[in-house]
């Protein structure tokens, strides 16, 4: 194997420092100017379209900011109290038990990984501590006669997390499986690559229209199939238990082609001679996959997982077009709540507070993932 990384021979002397302090500072200034010129376009766009809106959202979230009149009144934390508070709140061990058990299982896994030396003790502790706090916090719920100030926020947050937790693994595993299937030469492989990727080029309106038709209980293909199988027709988009899964299915069908392409690029970066050597050593397909493919795809996996988690937390278009968050609030997600609060109800301050909470959730989850996955890699 030929390494593409060039290393400096150990015997080579380090470059001599430039003579004279004046020259050093002049060259530093020149370097700084050059750096500034190259960085300026990005920084300008970053400040204008990311930093300023975020700071503006922070400011807006502290006011009762009206969309229609663009007026701001009542400075304070009212929006956050409305979002996170409630009346008659209490704590119990059994509230959201299944979620808390899953989180506890993650904490135990982290502890075991740290013990076996697969994860740094500090990383494990830093990740596990917030999770334990979350396990405690999830015990809070409205007692008899009490309720959350904004129950829709909690419903939306819950559905957004459910969507992310279910859709992301499906996209990762599905994308990898499809990439493995089409990672070969030949016409049929090129056809399947195109076929699998094709849905991704469609706009969300077309994708949702296709699936609304497919899932229609009277005229849809899915109902036609299930009726012939004797299972009857289900109105997937109007049943509280199937609405969100139907949106997840649509999203996976739509975007799995993109993760497939990323994995495909990763697969083609793995040195073929590694597989040859493993084969000569008597390794089977499964062993090769486990010990060559999976480690070889670590970087791509980090990219796919983190980007899909971020994208999943921002789910909106499919939900809005397919179910409008219904029936009831059974498929309501956070961005829809932000949209409705800000645009329909004109409460831009509250919508900003909701967005900032979503931003914090995404940041925390993404950073934790990066830290864990990179730590595992090292």
């Amino acid at each position: 194997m030929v390494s593409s990384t060039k290393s400096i021979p150990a015997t080579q002397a380090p470059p001599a420092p430039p003579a004279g302090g004046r020259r050093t500072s002049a060259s530093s200034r020149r370097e700084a100017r050059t750096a500034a010129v190259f960085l300026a376009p990005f920084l300008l766009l970053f400040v204008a379209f990311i930093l300023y809106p975020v700071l503006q959202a922070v400011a807006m979230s502290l006011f009762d900011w009206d969309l229609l009149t663009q007026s701001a009144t009542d400075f304070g934390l009212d929006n956050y109290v409305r979002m996170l508070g409630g009346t008659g709140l209490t704590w119990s061990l059994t509230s959201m038990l299944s979620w808390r058990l899953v989180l506890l299982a993650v904490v135990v896994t982290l502890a075991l990984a740290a013990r076996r030396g697969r994860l740094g003790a500090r990383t494990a502790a830093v990740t596990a501590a917030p999770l334990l706090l979350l396990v405690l916090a999830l015990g809070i719920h409205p007692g008899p006669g009490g309720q959350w100030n904004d129950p829709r926020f909690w419903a939306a947050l819950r559905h957004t997390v459910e969507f992310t937790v279910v859709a992301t693994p499906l996209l990762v595993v599905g994308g990898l499986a499809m990439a493995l299937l089409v990672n070969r030469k030949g016409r049929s492989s090129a056809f399947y690559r195109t076929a699998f990727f094709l849905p991704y080029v469609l706009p969300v309106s077309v994708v949702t229209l296709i699936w609304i038709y497919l899932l229609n209980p009277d005229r849809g293909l899915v109902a036609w199939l299930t009726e012939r199988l004797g299972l009857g027709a289900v109105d997937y988009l109007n049943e509280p238990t199937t609405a969100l899964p139907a949106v997840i299915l649509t999203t996976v069908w739509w975007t799995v082609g993109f993760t497939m392409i990323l994995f495909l690029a990763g697969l083609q970066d793995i040195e073929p001679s590694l597989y040859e050597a493993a084969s000569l050593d008597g390794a089977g397909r499964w062993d090769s996959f486990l010990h060559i493919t999976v480690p070889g795809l670590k970087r791509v996996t980090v990219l796919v997982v983190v980007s899909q988690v971020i994208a999943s937390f921002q789910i909106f278009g499919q939900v809005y077009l397919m179910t409008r968050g219904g029936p009831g609030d059974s498929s309501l997600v956070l961005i829809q709540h932000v949209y409705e609060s800000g645009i329909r109800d004109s409460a831009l301050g509250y919508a900003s507070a909701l967005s900032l909470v979503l931003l914090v959730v995404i940041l925390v989850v993404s950073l934790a993932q990066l830290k864990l996955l990179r730590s595992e890699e090292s």
Partner: protein
Amino acid sequence: MTRPLTRPALLRWSALSVAALTLSACGGAAAGSAETADLAAVTDDDLEGLTITVGDFFGDCVDAVGDETDPTVGTTECETMRILNNKFNAENPWGITVNREAGSEWSVYYDAVNSAFAADTAPDILFMHAANIPDYAGRGLLLPLDDSLEAAGIDTADLTEPALAGVTDGQGAVHGVPHDLHGNLVHLNMDLLAEAGLVTAEGEAVLPTSPEELVEHAEQFEQATGRQYIAWANDFNIPFRMFWTLVAQQGETVISDEGEATVDTEAGREALGVIADLYSRGIAQPEQTYDSSQQAWLNGEVGMLVNGTWVVNEYSRSASFDYRALDFPTLYDQPGVWANSHTWVVPAQEDADPARYRAALEYAAFMLENNEAWALNTGHLSPLTSVLESDFYQQADQRAGYATTAEFASLVPQVDGWQGAEDALARALETVWLTGASVEDALAAAQSQVASQLD
């Protein structure tokens, strides 16, 4: 190398930015302050050749309509609206041209309207549901029209009581010109009802007069025909509208005239209990949508469809059975049915040009004057007593069967934040048949959520 920004410096900059934004927030645009403009003083010369814009949600069926100016040839809301628009542009004595702004469809119309107001680009005249008026009028974004209606020749005495109440706020200020009244009706398959023995010897439909009788009729109908007695669209807020109707028929309100939520009441429990009972008995089906319930009824699988006035002409054309549209049956002490009203409102503009305001009002006045065409082509009820009582209207297809809806229509009082409150109420009610919540819990949740939205 450049010196990195130290942490304290970074904090200083961040604090400064937030402070600047905070200050800019305090100095944000003040709430609109539309004042009554003297539209009577506008002369014909001022109006000469003006071009104004209109926003509505009926779509752009220009291909079907072309330059047509005869409203009687319109067969849908879109066609009739565009023809009336053509007619105004062609016939108004001042040469005013009203151009339609690229509109949104009904479900996202108010999002577009809100964006337009936020960006100070609201059209000169807007189509608006009466229930939505307070959200804008309360912020000073709509022109009060009380003193100007007469200047445009609008006779408020001819408006039906519910239509006028729909555009009048608690202080008596008028912010809209009614265009129609639309409410829930029952659309009947008379052939199936006859088969079930629910038609009199004179050929009149026998409608239930109490919740108990509704259940009896449903069972009798199902036994005789093997079909579904009653259906409605669960995705179109019909259950909420049924709730509103049944509360109104008990002489109570869901929202008081003062804008307070009165959801969790004895009348509310009775109304929601009746609806929940219809679901639990399998008489009504919670998964039926607008599309599927309508299709089932049109296919002759349902005896009675609960839907609005806007489908009367369409059903008359497409039903392959003996069709009849009637007032929603009175199941309690007094008649009453959920209703809303389409209206025209004039957004307050930055330049407050009286001539443009007057041109907009003339357009609304023209629409009201030509209201008969709208009512006859679509099925909506006219807001004008003179039209409703005219022989021509009474003799028109189906109209006699539901003209009285205009009298006992129960409109949402003029309260700020109704759109969000209605959504919250509808969602809370749905939990009874979607997630098995009790009527008491659903109403308690509805009460607090509606109150919070109206707060």
